[in-house]
Structures are given as structure tokens and as C-alpha cells.
């Protein structure tokens, strides 16, 4: 009786381990390719990379308040495709891309896509008014002291980081992005 219980427990634990290992395995194709690495590399420790954000690697987590006063973390969106957009209202190319971001969000949100627009260093009221004016429905985050730059050392503004459902950075796009470019980059990740 007790033996059967243990077996069931062991099976459950095994299943749990397999399932929890699955995303890691999917997420790190490079790691799997380097399977010849020493055995210690296979230790199942999951550490969140502090940065800098690099293509093909796990996106560093961050948390900021939104214009509505909610605290939002990137990791809250694990399972979705996320476009992290670093921007400011004063920046012409950023303004230019807003309608494209809005259109892409409206089109792909039902399939598991979101934009996190991380404003760089502006006042809440100004940013909220701007978001209202452009009909932005995705979260607008306030990075008032520009601290995201520590882990996302962007070289120009705007910059968009595209993060897949497993939290891996798949593209770093400097300069304004078009709806067409978002389509090319995001659709394959939504279908994946």
C-alpha cells in the first residue's frame, strides 16, 4: 500500500520535473546543441539572467508602474509574445511608430501578443495624455530614471525588443518599427 503510494509520488514528481524542464529545453536550443559540455552544465538550476538583453538569451526581468498605477513585470507576460518598446513622447520617430504599434496590438492581442511601452523619464500625466490621444490600450510603463538601460543598454531611441513566449529575446530593433516589420517578426512567434 505504502509502496504503491511512493511509486505514485515518484511518478508524479518525475512528471512534474519533465514538465518543468520542458520550457527550459524549448527555450534554449543553443544549450541543447552544446550537449557535449561538462556534466555540471546540466544542473537544473534556473537563474534569471541579469542582463544585458541579448538576442537568443532570456530577457532580463523588469518591473515598473503603469500610467494607471499598477506594477507590471515582464515575467507576468510569460507565455505571450511581447514587444518591449523603449520610447518617449518627445522623440519624433517614436511618435511615428505609435500608430503601427497600436495596429499590431489590436490585430495580434487575441493571439497572445502584447506591447509593453516603457517610457523613458517623463511625467505620468504627460505620458497618460499621450497614450489617450493615440488610443493606446497596451500597458504604458514609467521608467522615470531610465534604469531599464542597465539591463537593456539600448543604443538609440526608440528601440524594440521582441521576446518570445518562453521569454527569450528574439530581435532587437533600433529605430521606428512598422506594422509590416512587426508582422514579419511576430507572426512566426505567435504560430510557434
Amino acid at each position, binding site marked *: 500500500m505504502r509502496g504503491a503510494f511512493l511509486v505514485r509520488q515518484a511518478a508524479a514528481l518525475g512528471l512534474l520535473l519533465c514538465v518543468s524542464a520542458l520550457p527550459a529545453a524549448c527555450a534554449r536550443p543553443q544549450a541543447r546543441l552544446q550537449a557535449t559540455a561538462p556534466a555540471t552544465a546540466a544542473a537544473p538550476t534556473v537563474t534569471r539572467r541579469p542582463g544585458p538583453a541579448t538576442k537568443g538569451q532570456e530577457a532580463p526581468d523588469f518591473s515598473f508602474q503603469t500610467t494607471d498605477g499598477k506594477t507590471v513585470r515582464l515575467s507576468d507576460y510569460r507565455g505571450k509574445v511581447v514587444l518591449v518598446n523603449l520610447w*518617449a513622447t518627445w522623440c519624433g520617430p517614436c511618435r511615428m511608430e505609435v500608430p503601427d504599434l497600436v495596429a499590431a496590438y489590436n490585430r495580434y492581442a487575441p493571439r497572445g501578443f502584447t506591447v509593453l511601452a516603457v517610457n523613458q523619464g517623463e511625467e505620468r500625466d504627460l505620458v497618460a495624455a499621450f497614450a489617450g490621444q493615440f488610443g493606446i490600450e497596451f500597458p504604458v510603463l514609467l521608467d522615470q530614471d531610465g534604469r531599464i538601460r542597465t539591463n537593456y543598454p539600448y543604443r538609440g531611441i526608440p528601440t524594440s525588443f521582441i521576446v518570445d513566449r518562453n521569454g527569450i529575446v528574439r530581435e532587437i530593433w533600433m529605430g521606428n518599427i512598422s506594422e509590416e516589420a512587426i508582422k514579419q517578426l511576430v507572426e512566426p512567434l505567435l504560430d510557434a
Partner: protein
Amino acid sequence: MRARVQKHAMVLLALAALFVAAGCGASGNVGSQKGNLAPDFSLETLEGGAGNLRDYRGKVVVLNFWASWCAPCRAEMPDMQTVYGELREAGLVIVGVNQGESRDEVSAFAREFGLTFPILFDENQGIARQFGVRAYPTTFILDRSGVIRNVIVGGPLTRTALRREVEGLLK
């Protein structure tokens, strides 16, 4: 005999057309791409008065689109100033085109960073649009005849990188 003269004339005409086309390709085409002649513009300067791009013809021009709220722009300013100090005598000028900030903000910034190169006010970012700027900072390297020799999107540009961009053009 007449046929031969006609043939010669045709060859000469074709050659002339080629020369004209090549001339246009080299510098006659005004635009914002590498190889284009940079479009002229006139903007107010920090010192007061108008600053025109053509005023700097004959110098190697580093045309830098920036704003003080832009972190990578701020980060590259000390090196911009350093290189300006080092190569001004050799014929380099850095032209900082500020994006939509007030005179007070810009002059405070210039003081803080000890900037001595010309700074112009692109108040509605119209010149940036004309130059097809897609991100800040963007830096255009212009040779002595005003032709765009390189476009660097993003920053911060280091002293080494900046010197590498301009040294060949200063010779």
C-alpha cells in the same frame, strides 16, 4: 565619310552623357543617404542667429541629432567634445542638432558638458525628418564637399570610433 563623322559624334555624345550621370551620382544628388549631398538647412543657433549647413562647407562635418533626455546621446557628448577639441584645427566641426528643447535646457546642458561646438535648434524635428532620422542619436559624417560619407544610427560613439570616421576625410 559622313557616316564615320556621325559615328564619332554619337560616341562623344554617349561619353558626355556618361560623365554627366557619373557627376550626378557622386555628389549632385541631394538626399540623406550615404553618397548624397546633404540637404542644406538653416536653423537658429545656441549663440543666436542663423546657422546654415553650407556655412561649414570645406570642413569635415559631424552632424549629430540629439536631445538631452536621450541617454545614449548624453553618453556620447563628452567624446564628441574631446574629438572636436582635438581635430578642430585640422578642419573638423561638430554640429549638434538639438531635437525640440528650449534654449534654457540646451544651454544648461552645454554648460554641464562644456560643449563648445555649434548647437542648432531643430524645434519641430523637421530637419531630422528631412534627414530620415529613425532613432536618436543619429550621426551623419559629411566630407569637405558636403557629401554624406557615413550614417551612424545609435550611440554612444566613442572617441576612437569618431576619430576613425573622420581622420581619413581630414587628410
